[in-house]
């Protein structure tokens, strides 16, 4: 074993890192979550043509290209002072539902879900999609593949390309929808609704009927009483594409509602010297360290944050599930980090229902899909990425070139909470210096529930961003290293 100085500032080499420090008794003193920095994005976009931004920003991340594409397009609407025609907004939203369908499906079945479906204490080599199929059956596997690909097909029909859409323009979209295409999407989304219902039944069967899992979800190490944030429509229902940003407090009451363009009035960012990620917090409450509760400005975004920040879902089946979610888990807000998984599949159902609605909307095949733009200026665009609130803010020159760009991505919004969840889970399960793979998985589960996006712009083989967990004792001696190719 190697002795390493306590130095959470150590340069990160291409991987996310969780560092856990133990005290003399072998209990957790503190934990840090760090991701590497990719430099130079602001400089990279400076001087570029504004209308190229939806394409450029969709390359930031291999995971959420559609979210960046639309946040960027909306920022350009605002910067060019143009309101897109109603049909264009619906086409963008339909595109977005395709993305939500495939992204949420992917996370639930492949990435986060195996923790529950296969089991938190199953050996690591079983906690994956193949283990899921072994437990839930081959038919589920086929359904998963089929509906993930439906989500991508919907995105491809509307966006022009399957993963990196090219349709968003300031003032509207470049491509309308034919009647045949709308019909195809209608069929696919109808099937996605059934799939989402089955997914919720599976969750019921495997997780909610298992007392051990329910106890785990409700257990202390996974609770965090933060504020919650998400976009809502005019009736305070969850909306992924548009609306106002709503923040609720620890009692589930409305604390703030604001327009995207005012985000700098309400959100500030705290800097820690050990992290490249800045930690956003609510300005009116202030930064009070990595603490939860009403006196700490830390908030959560993403599926659970959104459900907590809203008063319901805008489609009937998802709304019913929404109510059952709160009835089952003891009222609003739900503070369990592990409940993100359930919230995510309720959102999957909503996305499928909403796609079905939009595909049948009489306006969806309209040819009026773009309005003329005004003079270039400054603009903010916000959408709910699968992982949470995503903000793009641009300032343009008179010639419509980018002068300044600021982005707050979902995982940044969740950074403080992720850090605390890891710390609390570690405190809950690591006792007297005893650590094994099963225990570390219980720590990682707190992290995975958020579906965090590390600097995932790289696609270099073997395919992603590894995560490393290191545990040090009170003498700064490295006790354990767990490394996974993520």
């Amino acid at each position, binding site marked *: 074993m190697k002795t390493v100085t306590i130095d959470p500032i150590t340069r990160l080499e291409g991987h996310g890192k969780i560092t856990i420090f133990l005290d003399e008794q072998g209990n957790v003193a503190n934990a840090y979550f760090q991701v590497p920095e990719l430099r130079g994005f602001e400089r990279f976009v400076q001087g570029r043509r504004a209308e190229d931004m939806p394409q450029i920003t969709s390359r930031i991340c291999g995971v959420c290209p559609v979210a960046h594409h639309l946040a960027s397009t909306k920022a350009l609407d605002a910067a060019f002072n143009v309101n897109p025609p109603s049909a264009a907004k619906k086409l963008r939203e339909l595109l977005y539902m395709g993305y939500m369908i495939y992204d949420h499906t992917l996370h639930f079945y492949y990435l986060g879900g195996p923790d529950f479906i296969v089991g938190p204490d199953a050996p690591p080599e079983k906690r994956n999609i193949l283990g899921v199929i072994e437990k839930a059956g081959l038919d589920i596997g086929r359904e998963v*593949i089929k509906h993930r690909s439906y989500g991508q097909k919907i995105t491809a029909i509307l966006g022009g390309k399957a993963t990196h859409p090219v349709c968003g323009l300031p003032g509207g979209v470049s491509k309308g929808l034919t009647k045949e295409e709308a019909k195809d999407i209608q069929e696919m989304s109808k099937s996605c609704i059934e799939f989402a219902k089955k997914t919720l039944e599976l969750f019921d069967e495997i997780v909610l009927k298992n007392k051990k899992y329910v106890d785990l979800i409700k257990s202390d190490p996974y609770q965090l009483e933060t504020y919650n944030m998400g976009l809502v429509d005019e009736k305070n229902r969850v909306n992924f594409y548009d609306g106002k940003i709503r923040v609720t407090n620890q009692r589930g009451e409305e604390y703030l509602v604001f327009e995207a363009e005012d985000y700098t009035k309400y959100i500030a960012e705290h800097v820690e010297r050990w992290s490249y990620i800045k930690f956003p917090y609510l300005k009116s409450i202030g930064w009070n360290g990595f603490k939860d509760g009403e006196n700490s400005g830390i908030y959560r975004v993403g599926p659970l944050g959104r459900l907590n920040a809203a008063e319901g879902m805008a489609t009937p089946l998802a709304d019913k599930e929404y109510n059952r979610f709160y009835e089952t888990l003891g009222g609003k807000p739900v503070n369990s980090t592990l409940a993100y998984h359930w919230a995510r599949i309720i959102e999957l159902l909503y996305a499928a229902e909403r796609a079905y609605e939009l595909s049948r909307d009489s306006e969806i095949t309209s040819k009026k899909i773009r309005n003329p733009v005004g003079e270039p200026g400054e603009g903010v665009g916000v959408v709910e990425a699968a992982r949470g609130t995503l903000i793009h803010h641009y300032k343009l020159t008179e010639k419509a070139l980018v002068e300044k760009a600021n982005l707050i991505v979902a995982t940044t919004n969740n950074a403080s909470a992720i850090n605390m969840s890891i710390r609390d889970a570690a405190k809950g399960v690591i006792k007297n210096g005893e650590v094994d793979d099963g225990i570390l998985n219980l720590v990682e589960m707190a992290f995975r529930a958020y579906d965090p996006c590390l600097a995932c712009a790289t696609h270099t*083989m073997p395919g992603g961003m590894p995560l490393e967990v290191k545990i040090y004792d009170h003498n700064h001696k490295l006790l354990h290293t767990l490394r996974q190719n*993520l």
Partner: protein
Amino acid sequence: MGKTIIIGVGNPILGDDGIGIHIARELQRVIDDPMVTITEAYTGGMNLLDMMMGYDKAIIVDAMVSPNNIGEVKRLELKELPPTGSSNPHNLSLIEAILLARKLGENRIPRSIIIIAVMIPEPIEFKEELSENVAAAIPRVVAATIEEIRR
């Protein structure tokens, strides 16, 4: 010879990470063969598998982060790729995707899947340009890929 697909993988705005894209664009210029399809990909795993379904042979050109030998070109068979863990935050590795597809009885997976990897340093900055050593590898990667098509 059956149908072959060449997929250049990478992020075109992340410096050397975009080498696969540069190669795909170069190959588009020099290869004119109805049996060969050349395409670009910005994501890995399942999307790569979707792209290669129905072809007899797939050649993936990608960057591989390496502490040394920058610019070196390696030919790898699928089975030589490092095994991946179970908890990728966002994507399934290509190997996992293929295992899954096989398990579900998929019969359109290419019989031969080859990776041509170019060693690059850790990308840390957004830019479109390649570094000198990586750019210098382009002719070698193109030659290696053309040889692979004929193999």
